[in-house]
């Protein structure tokens, strides 16, 4: 109730003051809510603060559903001639907007501030660069980012005779620990040693983490027409998941959605889970048992993809709108705001300077679990981004789900996934790698 009144108050104030001196530029920011909690209301109060600090701009934060719905709404609004000034978009969708020529490169705005594109993107953690700056330009500003983490229930570890301060670091140790942590009652498993989210989007992300930990790359980070599904690194990763379910029986058969995984972790029905950094604050606030956070276990190397979202600027804006949008983007990615949002959500702050601020240092001392996510950044890789990213990702997810349900072997699955993905990528490949470019 308070929020509504303060919005009205702010709006009246803005309306009352603005026309006298100048006409404020009115812009919209589209934002999805990717994690639980009061993110939508926090975004609202953040925008109230921005509007108060920038009387020449009035930003309306527009909630736009999940990442997919945000993409639909953004495209539809652009086609209708009403592009939002800025969109918080899944970091790996940016490539497609660039391929379709739907977003503005940020270079001119960066140069107008006396920075070079390189020095601008250099403010952010290196792992984030490739999803934001490619094809010779900067296309997006990282806003909040994540990597997959291993969350473990420390109470379960101690009860099973394991040391919670030395969580599994390799796949072999993971299998070992998961076997000890799994509790069965006759033929019925009452507690699983390990769970991973098997729903769309999340599964593809976790599989790319496993393939990368197995020495693979999942996709070609330099060219959007190639994915590496039918490869030993991916087949080994799928085989590993298959064995966890059907050989070691430490993971439930079938598809467990991300929400069910975290619910099971809270309820003590799963001892280890892989979830996003973005869930960290929520878990910290709600987990009753003692827990620890660790790196994703490796097989051949430590490697995880980044996740999260970036700010991008659709085409079709006036010069005033572009300037206002740039002010907003710069403000949202500044060390102070970036750090504030990071502490609120659990996502790590993409701006490295956020970690030099005293409030962030205090926070990390009090919450060492957040430090793990930062340390893992040294091993982070770009997030898969291809032509038609969602369909290409789904090609793999459908096959891995079949493996999880016991309907396919790993070898069959990766072969089928590759065939489907190649078919989806074919039109783009025909226009790019198979064609001489002007």
């Amino acid at each position, binding site marked *: 109730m308070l929020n509504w009144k303060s919005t009205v108050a702010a709006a009246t104030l803005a309306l009352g003051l603005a026309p006298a001196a100048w006409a404020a530029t009115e812009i919209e920011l589209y934002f999805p809510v990717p994690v639980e909690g009061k993110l939508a209301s926090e975004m609202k109060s953040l925008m109230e603060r921005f509007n108060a600090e920038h009387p020449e701009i009035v930003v309306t934060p527009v909630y736009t559903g999940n990442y997919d719905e945000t993409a639909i709404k953004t495209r*539809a609004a652009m086609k*209708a*001639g009403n592009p939002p000034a800025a969109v918080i978009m899944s970091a790996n969708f940016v490539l497609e907007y660039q391929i379709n020529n739907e977003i503005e490169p940020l270079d001119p705005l960066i140069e107008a501030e006396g920075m070079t594109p390189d020095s601008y993107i250099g403010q952010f953690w290196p792992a984030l660069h490739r999803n934001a700056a490619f094809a010779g330009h900067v296309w997006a500003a990282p806003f909040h980012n994540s990597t997959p983490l291993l969350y473990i229930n420390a109470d379960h570890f101690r009860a099973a005779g394991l040391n919670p301060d030395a969580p599994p670091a390799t796949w072999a140790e993971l299998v070992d620990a998961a076997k000890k942590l799994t509790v069965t009652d006759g033929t019925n498993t009452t507690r699983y040693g390990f769970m991973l989210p098997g729903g769309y989007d999340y599964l593809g992300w976790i599989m790319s983490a496993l393939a990368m930990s197995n020495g693979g790359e999942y996709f070609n980070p330099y060219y959007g027409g190639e994915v590496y599904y039918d490869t030993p690194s991916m087949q080994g990763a799928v085989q590993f998941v298959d064995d966890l379910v059907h050989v070691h029986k430490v993971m439930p058969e079938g598809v467990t959605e991300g929400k069910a995984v975290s619910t099971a972790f809270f*309820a003590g029905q799963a001892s280890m889970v892989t979830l996003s950094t973005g*869930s960290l604050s929520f878990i910290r606030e709600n987990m009753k048992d003692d827990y620890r956070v660790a790196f994703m276990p490796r097989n051949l190397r430590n490697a995880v993809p980044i996740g999260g979202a970036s700010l991008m600027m659709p085409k079709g804006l006036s010069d005033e709108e572009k300037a206002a949008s740039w002010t907003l983007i710069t403000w949202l990615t500044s060390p102070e705001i970036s750090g504030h949002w990071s502490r609120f959500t659990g996502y790590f702050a993409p701006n490295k300077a956020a970690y030099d601020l005293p409030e962030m240092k205090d926070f990390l001392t009090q919450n060492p679990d957040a430090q793990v996510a930062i340390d893992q950044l040294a091993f982070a890789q770009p997030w898969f981004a291809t032509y038609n990213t969602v369909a290409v990702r789904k090609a793999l997810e459908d096959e891995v789900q079949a493996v999880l349900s016991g309907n396919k072997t790993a070898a069959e699955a990766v072969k089928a996934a590759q065939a489907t993905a190649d078919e989806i990528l074919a039109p783009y490949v025909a226009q790019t790698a198979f064609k001489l470019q002007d």
Partner: protein
Amino acid sequence: MKAEARWLAAAVLSLVALIWSTPLLWMMIAAFRPQNFGGLDMASLLPDFAPTLANFAEALDSAEFARLYLNTIVVCTGVLVVQLATVTLAGFAFARLRFPGQGAVFVLFLVQLMIVPPVLIVPNLITVTRLGLYDTLIAAMLPYMGSAFGVFLMRQTFRTIPRDFEEAALVEGAGWGQIIWRVLLPLARPGMLAFSIVSVTTHWNEFLWPLMVISNPDNQTLTIGLATFTRGAESASQWGVIAAGTFLVAAPLLVAFVLFQRQFVNSFLFSGVK
């Protein structure tokens, strides 16, 4: 033998009714259950806890419910009022008037039923923007102001009314407007009521189109308001809050159903809609 068969039928039907109402029952119970992040009793249908209103407090605090209710009521009423005018007139035309190409036009109308609404998002959005209505409640209503289903339903309803009534009115000197208003509409009330129920529930629950066309938080409808605090993808479900929020969204329709149950059931029986 006969009595046994009746008991059996009653038992089977009760079972079906129970299965159908399970999600609803669970929602009502979960809304009052203290938050426990899916402990083993989460799925239980038995209220084995001290009821709490904390979930409702959190849900009410997470969205501007008064405004969301108002917007949704405005959209549903607006759509319904215009629809009732358009579908009764069009239904009358197809049921009673003779004009060239009648069959073809009617088939064209029915073809609309086969178009999946999301296909029309972009064209509709462009139209709405050109009319200068983007981000208004009218835009949320506009695409639904005609209804192929409604026209079909009203045509069928009018056809079940014997022509004798109209002829009698004609003899008395009534025009076609008076015939519709004084003779046909009163007789077609069950059909209109059935259509109204379908229309109101559809638009009350609609999500995608309002999400596309409305940007200003002050113009949002209930479904979008509910989604803002219940649809995080990367985290655990706060089932209690989700259930409480869903309860708040569904409650007006549930209350309306309980109050007008008899009329609703009768109108569906009469109009043959199931």
